[in-house]
Every structure is written in C-alpha cells, then in structure tokens.
C-alpha cells in the first residue's frame, strides 16, 4: 500500500513498443517462410513471447508496478507451465516402456 502517485509512462515508450510490435509481427511472418525445420515453431514462439512481454511490461505497466502485481503475473504463468510440463511428461513419453500405444482407430460402431 505504498503511496506512490500513478506512474506516467512517457508517450515515446508507447510508440517505441508499438513499433517494435509491428516489426516483430512482420518478422514472424517472414521467419515462417524460411524452412528451419523444427526451429520454425521455436522461433515463432520466441518472437511471440517477446511481443507478449513488451505488452505486459509497458502497455500493461507491469514494469512500473508493485511486486505483488509482478508476483501475480509470474504465479499465473508458472501454473500454466505446470499444466503444460506435467501433461507433456505423459504425452511425450507415453508407450515408451510398453511399446506402442499409438492411436489405432476405433472400429465401427
């Protein structure tokens, strides 16, 4: 409950972030046209994460916000990662021990 006044973010920061977002959008479309194999998706996600971070930090003022706000954002993202990571421990290693358990189709009903 600090008594700070609203932090006024200078307009030039917004403009800069905006331009960066535009550039990254063009970049991500361009990058998708190059064959990087499995790294296409990695690159696309890295760019998306950078864009999202810019929006969160500056448009949403997290960079200037209290520790609590930062903690809430981080807690949310961590929970999301928990969901992804632990579900993937199953999906990525399923059947590794017993041989195949691939999808085999359902015979007619």
């Amino acid at each position, binding site marked *: *409950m600090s008594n700070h006044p609203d932090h006024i973010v200078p307009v030039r920061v917004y403009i800069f972030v905006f331009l960066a977002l535009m550039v990254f959008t063009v970049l991500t479309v361009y990058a998708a046209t190059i064959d990087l194999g499995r790294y296409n998706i990695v690159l696309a996600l890295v760019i998306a994460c950078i864009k999202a971070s810019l929006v969160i930090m500056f448009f949403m003022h997290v960079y200037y916000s209290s520790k*609590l706000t930062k903690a809430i954002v981080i*807690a*949310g993202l961590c*929970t999301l990662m*928990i*969901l992804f990571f*632990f*579900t993937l*421990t*199953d*999906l*990525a*290693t*399923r*059947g*590794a*021990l*017993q041989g195949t*358990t691939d*999808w085999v*189709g*359902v015979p007619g*009903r």
Partner: protein
Amino acid sequence: METVATAVEREPRTYLNVDHTLKSWLLTEDHKRIGILYLIVITIFFAIGGLFAALIRIELTTPAGDLVESSVYNRLFTGHGIIMVFFFLIPSIPASLGNFLIPLMIGAKDVAFPKLNLLSWYLYVIGGSMALTAIIYGGIDTGWTFYVPFSTGYASGMVMLTLVGIFINGFSSILTGLNFMVTIHRMRAPGMTWFRLPLFIWSLYSTSLIQVLATPVVAVTLLLAALERGLHIGIFDPALGGDPVLFQHLFWFYSHPAVYIMILPAMGVTSEIISTFSKKEPFGYSFIALSSLAIAVFGFIVWGHHLFVSSQSVYAGMVFSILSYLVAIPSAIKVFNWVSTMYKGSVELTTPMLYGIGFIGLFTIGGLTGLFLASMGMDVHLTDTYFVIAHFHYIMVGGAIMGFMGGLHFWWPKITGKLYSETWARLSAIIIFLGFNLTFFPQFILGYMGMPRRYHVYAPEFQVFNVLSSAGASVLGLGYALPLVYFLWSIFFGKKAPANPWGATGLEWQIQSPPLPENFEITPVITEAPYHYAPSEEVVHVG
C-alpha cells in the same frame, strides 16, 4: 412470534436486525448476510446430496439390484457426486464461514468487492439450479468425473445442462477466491501483518489461490466436453483422433487441487478450534500457516496419480507418484502441530473441540490411506475400488464436513447471537463420529477385497461389509439430522450469546454478537500476535 419480534426490537443494532425485508437479503452487499445466503443454499444441497447417498446405501444393502434399476442407481451416484463436490463441499466453508469471517478476522468493513461477492452467490444459485434441474428431471449417468468418450457420446440425460451449470458455478468459485485474495492482501487492518493473521485466514488464502488458478481449466475442459457432446467436434473422441486421456489430465488438473479446496479451510477451522479450546497459541504457528500454502502449491503437481492405470506413460506416473508424497509432509506437519498444541494446554471438550479432534483423527486416517493410492503398484489394485471411496470420504466427510460442522458450532454464537444446546450438540458430534467410521471403515476392506466402485450389483461375498456400511450410514444420517433441529431451535429459543463465549482471542470475538452491519465501530489497530492467551514472557521451549 410476537414476543420474539419485540425482543429483537429492543436489542442493539446488528447486521441481522438492521433491515428485515426479503429485498434487503437478496440484494445485500454485506459479506455476513451473503455468508448466510450461502449457508442456506449449501444446506439445501447437502440435504439433497445426502438423500441420494441414503438411497445408494439402501440399495447396496443387498448384492442384487432390488431397490432401483441400474440406470437409476447410476443417476443416484452421479447426482450425489456432482452435488456434493461442486455445490456443497467446494463452496461449503469458504463461501459461508469464509465470507462471514474474513473481514471480521482481518479487521475490515467488508470484502474488497461486495457486489462481486453477491454476484458470486447468484452465479452459484443459477449454476446449482441448472445442475439440479438436470439431475432431477431425467438425471445424468456420467459419474461426477464426466470421463470421455462416455459422457460425450454414450451417456444419457441432460449432460449439457449439467456441464453448463458447473461451468457457471465455476465462475462463482473463481470470483469468490479472487475476492478473498484481494481482501486478504489489501483490506487488513493497520498492524495486521501476515504473521499476525489467524490460521483460518492462511488456509482460506491458500484455498483461494487454488480456486483462482485451477478452476478456469476445468471450466474450459467441461465446455469442450459440452461442445464435443453437442457438435461432435472430435476434441476428446478417440474415433476422431481425440485423446480421452487428455481430458483426464485437464479434469484432474483442477479436480485434484479441488480436494484441497475442500480440506484446507477445514484445516484452518481446526487450527482455530484446537487453539481456542486448549487456551494456548498453536504450536508452530508459522509451520501450520506455511504448510497450507505448501499444500496448495504441491497440490498442482500431483494430479497424474489419478491416471496410473489409464494408459498414462509409466515415466509420468513415476513423477506424479513421487511428487504426491510431497503433499504428505505439510499434512503431517499440521497434524503433529495440532496435537502438540494440546500438550500442556487447558483442554475443554466443547462441541467444536469434539469436531476438531475428530477431524484430526479422521484426517490422519484419510491422509495415510492416500499414501496407498500414491504408491503405483498398490494403486493398480486399489484404484476404482471402494478403497478409493473410503479414502476420499475420510478426507471429504471425515475431514471437510467435520471441519465445516466444527466451524459452524464454533462461530454459531457469533453468526446468530444465540447459543445452541451443548448437550445435544455433543451427542450429535459423537453420533456423527461413530456413524461415520461405521459407514466408511468397512469400505477400506471392501476395496482391498476388490469391490469396484459405482457397482449397482455386486458379488455376494461383499455383502457383510456393505451391510455394516449401510447401518453406519443410517447412524450418520441421524447425526446430521440433529444439528438441523437444535440449530433451528436455538435461533428461536436459544439463549443470547455473549460476545466471546469461548474466551477466544480472535478479532471477531472482540466485537458484539451478532456483529454490527459495518463490523467495527472504529477500524481496529492490531498490536499483538494472534492467540495471545498467555503473556509472551511466559513461553516454554521444547524440541
């Protein structure tokens, strides 16, 4: 009634008598009144869910399906599960007692968002009505877990309506959790630091954390299941390449932490009760407080132990199994600290205390039998049998409902300003404890013998323990009926309760019973740690 009414007129202003119109209740933004609104609806759901349970137990007295048909039996246990889990246990302590007590305990005038609080109640009522409509008109036979592809392609009844009802109710739960978290963060009275918070608040904070973070996932999962059922989009349909195990992951990502939504508040209640009736500050306050958070956090990374036999990867099973044991540690810490709180205390076996120590004992058994199910080799034999049923009823009934009853008895004088009959209440507490054990202990044995859950007709060698269990259930039913009578009696004829009938230290006990509409005449300033029963210089150190 006239005499009662005039008596009320002469009483000091309270949140109860400030306005008597129905409108003043249905449009109230007072957290105390909203807590009571919840309490009423929760009680109705508990009664309906209990009725379903009674029918199930009567049916299971004999191995044959002689009371109802299979399709009806399946609707009974589905209705029982859905009502008890989503519409009774999850809102039970947080939404009723939590709503009533959080602002009182932290020295606030109300929760952070009173309108949102009322909205949450309406969402709960709307969602609950939808589910109840579906269950009563036609019923559904999916089981409360809604496993696909059964629920999306084969089950009968108004599955969609139920799913939408639970979805809406999910938002009630999310918004309540959000409201509580903001309240605890931002509405504490001056001097009320984190480590001066009552343990009940710590447990509700942890609960809210789960509600906020986990509920959205089940909401979207059930939404997808509803879409799958309605439009056959294939998302969980193996015939279209969907993965039914993915549904189970997403479902248990919420539904395992949901168990902690039920048990954590009960743990908080128990912490308050044990301390009050030992007249002693809780042993290891910070350990109990932080273990609540630890349970909430660990609770998010163990869900896969529900999937050991579901064709989940063996490696994932290993990870989930070992992580599951981590939850045992904070739970053990709590139990040992509660027991140590009684050590060299001044123990008074009032009704709340009976529920409190009953909780510790039953939770211990419930928790320890959970270790069986976290051990993979053991779980293969036990999962989907009555052992699981017994285990989670020890947690949910022996734990969560004992905590709820304990809390209700503990704070009843504060909520209503009336005293209930201690004799009847103790009697009912003892009946509930005995009836509960008779109902559910035989189910452990049934489970190990191999009786699968959700069986309408069962093999004859299982009958003996089923009869014991049904007999226990009737005792338990009696135990639950009694409080309804003496609580109602106390409202009309009970003695007036003093501000602090138990000699407790909590902030809520320092104000009048029932409280003022605005809780505190002036904002309290907190200068001491909670539970200051003895002067702080007289501290004994052990261990």
